């Protein structure tokens, strides 16, 4: 066993400290709105997290040897556990969340950008909503990259950490080093946040706090609900369009924006993933709109198109907003939305699920399957953006997709112990794994998971983590060879 535990704990300490600092805004919010109990909760948690976190960070000596791959995986898990735990304390102390399990669920749902809840709508107070939105925002880009971008002082193998953390296949590297890359990513992320905040605040009847909460939940593709009935509450087409456009922007590959900043428009134009993502969103929107209009669900085609676009963008970006009750839509439309659970957004974005790039590779492999069966002896590489992909990357991607479906089925099996109908069970799993948050059947548009028993709620927190960290990060822990390097052999 040769893990660099000291360094791992040091980093986890830093994360805890940052979690504490992030509590300052909700704390002030609690004071402002006179939520005494919640304010006390933050007053207790905030200093503890900050002090404990930074004490560990400053006084723990880092391990001498460099970080290895397996340390990278472990550090990610350490950090997520640390921030989820400290993030859960305010919910618990505020008394607004009935049990510790629900508090953990809220916290994990926050950091994984799922936006699911075990509580009825609009049950949390303003300050806690702001806290949840903040965790969404922090979790959005992965708190780890956050660390790399602001604290290069650690001087550890940051490339490796990024490989374990950043969502998606990560085939492209636009910026020379992980540090610069994540700095640019955060710059874009923050710009989007500010632009959307201003639009929502000035362009609608929302107050500043509500606009901020909506923005934080939208840019991180979480889909935080403030009101039952979803976004229809605002009665504003402008709000609907702003939210769906920004949630789509947040689920596009962020490297694209770097290219745009660098004025490298060729790379943008030729990017297959963005084009396919656009086609998926446009195609699904159109089909659902036609179906809604043809079945008379909505009277005008314009309304059908608007509703369809909003709901498709909510599913495709894995944010999980809802516009009205889509469970009364024709099952065909629901089927398309269900498929979007398994597509998700682009790589290097805040969205979850399989991701468009992998889906593209999957179809290319099917196409090659046809070719190979006609010409059994021919060799043929899978090409992406004109370049042949290395066999290793293809194998990794296809294994990931299989693993995703297998995990989906096994997790559904566990959730089926609750005895809810199949549709609810399957959609709950798909929704949590893809960090979407809303589902079908009993979960419905409100994304309320209180129908599950406490033990399963805890398990659902695990599902969200597994989905967010791209399966392997968590699964590796259950392999003996992870803990004992010399046993890595296939029988």
């Amino acid at each position, binding site marked *: 066993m040769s893990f660099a535990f000291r360094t791992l704990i040091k980093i986890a300490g830093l994360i805890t400290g940052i979690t504490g600092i992030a509590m300052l805004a909700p704390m002030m919010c609690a004071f402002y709105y006179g939520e005494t109990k919640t304010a006390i909760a933050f007053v207790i948690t905030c200093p503890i997290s900050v002090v404990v976190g930074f004490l560990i960070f400053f006084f723990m000596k880092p391990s001498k040897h460099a970080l290895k791959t397996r340390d990278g995986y472990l550090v990610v898990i350490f950090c997520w556990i640390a921030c989820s735990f400290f993030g859960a304390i305010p919910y618990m102390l505020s008394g607004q969340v009935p049990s510790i399990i629900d508090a953990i669920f809220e916290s994990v749902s926050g950091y994984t950008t799922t936006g699911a809840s075990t509580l009825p709508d609009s049950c949390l107070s303003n300050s806690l909503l702001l806290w949840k939105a903040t965790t969404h925002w922090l979790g959005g880009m992965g708190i780890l990259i956050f660390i790399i971008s602001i604290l290069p002082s650690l001087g550890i193998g940051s490339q490796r950490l990024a490989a374990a953390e950043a969502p998606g296949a990560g085939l492209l590297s636009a910026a020379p080093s992980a540090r610069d890359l994540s700095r640019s990513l955060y710059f874009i992320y923050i710009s989007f946040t500010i632009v959307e905040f201003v639009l929502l605040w000035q362009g609608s009847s929302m107050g500043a706090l509500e606009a901020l909460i909506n923005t934080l939940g939208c840019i991180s593709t979480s889909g935080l609900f403030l009101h039952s009935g979803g976004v229809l509450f605002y009665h504003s087409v402008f709000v609907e369009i702003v939210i769906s456009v920004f949630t789509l922007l947040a689920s596009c590959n962020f490297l694209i924006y770097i290219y745009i900043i660098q004025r490298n428009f060729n790379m943008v134009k030729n990017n297959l993933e963005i084009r396919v993502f656009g086609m998926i969103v446009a195609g699904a929107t159109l089909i659902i709109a036609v179906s809604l209009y043809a079945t008379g669900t909505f009277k005008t085609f314009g309304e059908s198109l608007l509703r369809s676009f909003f709901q498709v963008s909510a599913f495709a970006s894995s944010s999980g907003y809802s516009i009205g009750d889509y469970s009364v839509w024709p*099952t065909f439309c629901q089927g398309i939305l269900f498929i979007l659970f398994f597509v998700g957004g682009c790589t290097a974005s805040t969205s979850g699920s399989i991701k468009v790039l992998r889906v593209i590779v999957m179809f290319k492999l099917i196409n090659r399957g046809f070719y190979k*069966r006609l010409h059994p002896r021919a060799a043929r590489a899978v090409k992406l953006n004109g370049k042949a992909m290395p066999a290793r990357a293809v194998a990794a991607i296809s294994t990931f997709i299989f693993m995703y479906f297998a995990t989906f089925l096994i997790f559904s099996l566990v959730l089926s112990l609750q005895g809810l109908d199949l549709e609810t069970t399957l959609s709950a799993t798909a929704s949590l794994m893809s960090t979407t948050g809303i589902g079908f059947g009993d979960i419905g548009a409100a994304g309320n998971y209180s129908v599950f028993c406490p033990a399963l709620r805890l398990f659902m927190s695990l599902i969200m983590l597994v989905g967010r960290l791209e399966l392997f990060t968590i699964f590796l822990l259950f392999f003996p060879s992870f803990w004992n390097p010399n046993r890595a052999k296939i029988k």
Partner: protein
Amino acid sequence: MDLNLKTLLRIIGKLLIITGTVMVLPFFVALIYGETEAAKDFIAVIAPSVFTGAMISLLAPHSHRPLKMRDGFLIVSISWLIMSLLGAVPFVINGCIPNFIDAFFEMCSGFSTTGATILKNIEALPMSMLFWRAFTHWIGGMGILVFAIALLPNLGIGGQTIVRAETPGPTLSKVTPKMKDMARSLYLIYTGFTLIETLLLMAGGLSFFDAITHSFSTMGTGGFSNYNDGAAHFHSAYVEGIITVFMILAGANFNLYYIALKKQVHVLVHDQEFRLYIFIIGVTTLMMTLHLYFTHTFDTLASSFRYAVFQDASIITTTGFATTDFNLWPTFCIMVLFLLFFIGGCSSSTAGSIKVIRILVLLKLFKRSVSMKLHPKALFSIKVNDQPLPSDTIQNIISFVFLYIVTVIGVTLITLLDGVSITTGLSATASCLGNIGPGFDAVGPVLNYDLFSYPVKLVLSFAMIAGRLELFTLMMLFSRRFWNPAH
């Protein structure tokens, strides 16, 4: 276009003769039970198809070009469609299934060994029609063209190309050098099992007719029964036990039986696919038994086990018999069955779906990718039964499973156009594509597929054939690359 159309024509000729010949059996059944109407209906198909077939065989020109993969796909797909079309005709003439699309659905379900039916009252059918339904399972189980190769020695075609396009599962080993010998030995084992099961079922008090039709259905892993309540009709644990055992036998690799018969039993016992197959059956049965017992779905542990093991074997072997309405079972059991929908039997069995061997390879891929994540620079090969798998085989398995997933999703969307629930659409599709039969919700074991509209029934019929022919064979015909070799 360089398709070998001459050979295709000749094979179609032979196929027409074979179809006519196999229909002689239900014709005799009709005579025995004095169903003159039905007998006439069968003759009305037998006579013209044998005649046309003979004419084609006599007149069609010979081709000496060997068959390519492309020809194999076309021949196999067309043969299956022709068989299903012809098989449907007696039902329509007889009037017991008035609509042709319904009859076609029923026959696709028969030949693909699915066992999904659109009939509300099965017992109203004439005996001969019931026999024909079950018999299509038996023929379809081993493959129509494998059947042809086994029966007709001088077909003059490259058997391997066709067998590859028709046999379920990736072929990892060659058992006998000649396809003809292999086809024959497989059919011999198949017939042997069928006869033994018939005798054992008769010992359980079934009539010869019931015993043989249910044996056809079991060995072909089909699922058609002569009764509305299916295998539950007999109310006999013994009968259910026999059917369970033979379903499991039919879902295992027949090549292994061939080897085992040559006194190499250890090959069967040590086969990784067979072991995983038995392991999956054991674990899932145990889970369902306990869950059924502790949720008080059944009173005793014994009856929980009885229903659980039967249903488990019935679904994993893609037979689709039901001894109870599993729609009413707890969701956990339904979910276990739903998982089994996507596993299926072993390669070179009569079962459908993804097949255990592919699941095995996927599991090994998972394991390898974990090792690769920890040791990014090391090379790992994937071995089955201590033999390293060539990367081509792995690629084929990967593309198959992907295509399977995509097809399930695509066809489900089409079924949803009928406005059925997602559970109904998804389970009906998975069931048809996996050649299982019953699904959940509105297509549950005591219900039928009549609720779908005709276009959807047609799509599901194609899905059944596509699933039986392992997707690529039939779906190839819809690809541009197939018709334009330069593409």
